[in-house]
């Protein structure tokens, strides 16, 4: 009796482990099919689990598995997605290791929790390099050296502000709107005081860190894999992020052109 109880607990732990792995991947911007695949692989790798299925959308994970004629189901809700591609890679490696070894589930859960804590780069470094990307982008668009400098400083300010207001847990729409507003407002000012030379290039460069590149890529990859619900919702995210940026820029330009 004790033995079968233990085994049952092990199956439950396996379910928890697989959903935790899926949650970390989904939270950091993995495609739907990769999350589903990882969860199913982890579940099916152990003991006598014949049936395991996962249904993943960008906002939640449902997993059920059959153990000894009993169905177990687990559901978790996923909120605020942040992009950290390194964690996706780490969980991917972990799942491969877990499936091909006899790692106990407790150890696996501990390892996953550790992965969840890893910070690949410090937030400061991310902001510095993110604004570097925008600044070089303005050069690609034919900006001068002064445009490069002002784009660098403006996107630095935009990224720092977005990082700060992230704590208030506002929606991505508000974040993008505020970011685009600040970017265009500061660009107007920097050209007014004669520091930047081409206002349009500076604005285009500084909004580049806000554009929904991840949402576009994932929306399409989901749709091709047949995950139409995820594809649609991520496509919606991309469209509304773009609209928020456009509204932010338009808001400032409207005032600038009138006044």
């Amino acid at each position, binding site marked *: 009796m004790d033995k079968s109880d233990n085994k049952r607990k092990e199956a439950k732990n396996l379910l928890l482990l697989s959903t935790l792995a899926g949650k970390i991947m989904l939270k950091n911007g993995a495609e739907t099919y990769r999350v589903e695949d990882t969860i199913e692989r982890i579940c099916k790798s152990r003991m006598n689990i014949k049936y395991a299925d996962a249904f993943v959308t960008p906002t939640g994970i449902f997993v059920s598995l059959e153990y000894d004629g009993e169905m177990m189901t687990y559901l978790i809700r996923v909120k605020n997605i942040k992009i950290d591609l390194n964690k996706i890679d780490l969980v991917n490696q972990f799942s491969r290791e877990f499936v091909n070894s006899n790692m106990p589930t407790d150890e696996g859960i501990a390892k996953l929790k550790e992965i969840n804590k890893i910070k690949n780069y410090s937030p400061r470094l991310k902001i510095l*390099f993110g604004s570097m990307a925008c600044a070089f982008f303005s050069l690609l668009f034919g900006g001068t050296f002064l445009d490069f400098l002002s784009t660098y400083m403006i996107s630095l300010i935009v990224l720092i502000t977005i990082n700060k207001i992230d704590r208030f847990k506002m929606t991505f729409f508000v974040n993008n709107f505020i970011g685009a507003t600040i970017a265009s407002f500061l660009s107007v000012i920097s050209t007014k005081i004669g520091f930047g030379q081409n206002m349009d290039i500076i604005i285009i460069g500084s909004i580049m860190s806000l554009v929904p590149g991840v949402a576009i890529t994932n929306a399409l990859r989901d749709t*091709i894999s047949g995950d139409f619900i995820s594809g649609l919702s991520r496509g919606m995210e991309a469209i509304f992020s773009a609209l928020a940026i456009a509204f932010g820029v338009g808001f400032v330009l409207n005032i600038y052109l009138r006044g």
Partner: protein
Amino acid sequence: MSILIQLLLAFLSTIGFAILFSIPKKSICKSGIVGALGWITFYIISIHLNSYTSATFFAAIVVGILGELMARYYKKPATVYIIPGIVPLVPGAGMYYTMLALVSKDFYTAINKGTETFFIAAAISLGIIISTSLSRSIKRMKHKN
């Protein structure tokens, strides 16, 4: 010469985006190469064909295929290489010029720029769709054998 400069700038820009999205440290350089080659495709084709839409389409295909190849070779998720490479192609400039025309009530230019922006976004989609489904079907073929 200008191509070399563009290559270098695009490389640096993609590396910046790669770190912003926190990709694994070992993949930074490779994703920079993917992004730089994608941008160069965009640059050369946009000069020769004088069309941003088709240039974006081919650039997205290059980024997609290179990303899938790197993913296969280095055993990493393909998005690690594709996402930083795609970001420079996203039509931020088109969005800006559409908005500028809209607020200055120049609706003719707004429609012009707006459609171009929309088609550039569609071209990115098409490019990724083609490269991804190509790699999927190759994977399936190999699975069968």
